[in-house]
């Protein structure tokens, strides 16, 4: 393995070993004045492992995904890697530098892109934002100026570059976020939900940019967190599925889906579904998992996802049960397992819950 730019070692681009981060959360005060006072003086705290002995490695030039529902520990992992948090246990290295002991070198090696509205100075123009951060990364002016121009052109913001960011649309702000993470031309990029809340068209622009330009053309190593399974499936070379702070599966998207290939998947659109029937469905022989996603809970409308070993046997019993419970079946479709199904088979829950 060759040595990366600025890296002292020919190690993986990112290496995470038993990484753990525990937060303390204040418990709700008990009822009663004495208990409330006691809670104020010495609040009871419970410990929650946001990241729980996580292990993975990212190879140079790899597009690595961290897929999990909200609160699974994705953002905490990113914050540990970019030195915004210090680990309680375990260690991690970025570009060969230890995140706890060599924080400055780690920061120099990274570009971090976060989703959402934060992280930009809204009263400055797009160009001023990029210039400001380029200077904080110690990029000389004669290098920064053409680089900023090129980056603005790459994401088609050159015509709006001298307008205040507060006048940008959400999609434009996000494109600015992405190139802000590139002003120091880092070998490694951490993308934390970069398409969060974007409309499909803006999200596609970002996805194409990071995959085609950053990975394929510029050979950046990318760690991408998302709870959009289609996005992870489309972009990532390998995916770690994370839930409750633990990595529960790690492989290529194809292999992850293969791991549940012996299971058949059916998705049934229903209305007037009786929620108490969900547990009954799971008791049908050969049904391994049944998860309901409501689109309108007031009328029992939604989609039931079934994982079963033999759908031909299961479907007649299932339809009988649903009809007996008063549900109306609108559509029934057999489908190939997706990453969502991998998550369901491992946790019994949907990613979006």
């Amino acid at each position, binding site marked *: 393995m060759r040595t990366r730019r600025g890296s002292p070692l020919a190690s993986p681009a990112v290496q995470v070993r038993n990484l753990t*981060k525990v*937060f*303390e959360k204040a418990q709700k005060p008990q009822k009663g004045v004495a208990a409330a006072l006691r809670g104020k003086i010495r609040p009871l705290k419970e410990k929650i492992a946001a990241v729980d002995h996580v292990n993975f490695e990212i190879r140079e030039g790899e597009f690595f995904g961290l897929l999990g529902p909200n609160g699974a520990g994705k953002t*905490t992992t990113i*914050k540990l890697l*970019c*030195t*915004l*948090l*210090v680990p*309680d246990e375990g260690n991690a290295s970025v570009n060969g530098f230890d995140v706890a002991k060599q924080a*400055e*070198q780690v*920061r*120099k090696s*990274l570009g*971090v892109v*976060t989703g959402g*509205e*934060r*992280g*930009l*100075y*809204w*009263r*400055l123009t797009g160009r*001023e934002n990029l*210039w*400001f*951060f380029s*200077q*904080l*990364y*110690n990029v*000389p002016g004669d290098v920064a100026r053409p680089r900023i121009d090129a980056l603005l052109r790459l994401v088609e913001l050159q015509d709006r570059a001298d307008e*205040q960011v507060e006048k940008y649309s959400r999609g434009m702000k996000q494109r600015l976020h992405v190139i*802000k993470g590139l002003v120091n031309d880092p070998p490694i990029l951490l993308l934390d939900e970069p398409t969060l809340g974007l409309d499909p068209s803006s999200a596609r622009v970002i996805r194409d940019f990071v995959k085609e330009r950053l990975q394929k053309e510029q050979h950046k190593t990318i760690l991408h967190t998302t709870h959009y399974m289609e996005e992870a499936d489309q972009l990532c070379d390998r995916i770690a599925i994370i839930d409750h702070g633990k990595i529960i599966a790690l492989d290529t998207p194809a292999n992850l889906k293969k791991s549940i290939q012996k299971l058949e998947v059916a998705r049934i659109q229903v209305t007037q579904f009786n929620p108490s029937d969900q547990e009954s469905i799971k008791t049908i022989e050969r049904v391994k998992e049944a998860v309901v996603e409501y689109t309108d809970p007031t009328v029992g409308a939604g989609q039931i996802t079934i994982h079963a070993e033999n759908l031909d046997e299961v479907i007649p019993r299932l339809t009988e049960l649903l009809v007996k419970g008063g549900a109306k079946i609108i559509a029934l479709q057999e489908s190939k397992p997706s990453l969502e199904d991998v998550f369901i088979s491992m946790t019994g829950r949907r990613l979006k819950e």
Partner: protein
Amino acid sequence: MNPAKEWRTFKAVFLRNLKLFTSYSAWIVAILIWPIPLLAVNIYSYKALGTDASISSIVSREFGISNFAGMVIIGTIVYLLYNRLLWGAGISLQSERWMGTIEALFMTPANRMTVLFACGVSSLIEGSWWIGCIFILSWMIFGVEPSITSWVAIAAGILSTMVALISVGVFFASFFVLTRAADQMASALQAPIRFFSGVVFPISALPQLLQFISYILPVTYGIQAMRKAVLTGGDVASISYELALLYVFALGLTVAGYFTLKALEKQAKRKGTLYMY
């Protein structure tokens, strides 16, 4: 330390702050207006007690300062500079929280102390021009005759006071990394500093016990040095004690700010409170 890197950081933060400051034009107007009534209240509190001559005579006899209006103006100007630093540099990291940029800032390899010093200097520049305007305006309104014999002493007094006040801003900024209530704490610090540093009266008017608190505040020495240089014709030698103490404060607060920032940033990163509002 790489001087070119530190200079880039300093310049970028300084220019950003000036751009952000000038983008809120209504605020500039507001801060030009409010110190004038503040000064007027303080000066008329004295004027209500008798004629200018009789009050000046008492103040001169008791405290050795012949010009009570000048005493109030100098005290208020130094206090306003302190206030500007407290609300500018002091809460600079809290402002980053409000703007949602503190994480983006802390993810860069920029030296935090350089960032804070740049915030201090930009706060001072922002504050200096309008404080200068107020100084000239109030001098014209209240007809104070300065007694200046050494412009070098005035320049040294201003410079030393500014250096000490920047370090005050850096220290508060460091301290406020951990808290999410920097603005409340800054508010809480306004009135005590105004009282103990003798903004509108000489600290010798305070009971001996309270004077001890005055002696541990750099604002006190900034006010004393400037009063001596502007109102009593003091030269550099006559204010050297105050100047020396201002630099001691500057050094001490900078060192304390550095270690406080380091320790509190570590704690904020351990508890995950850095980004919280």
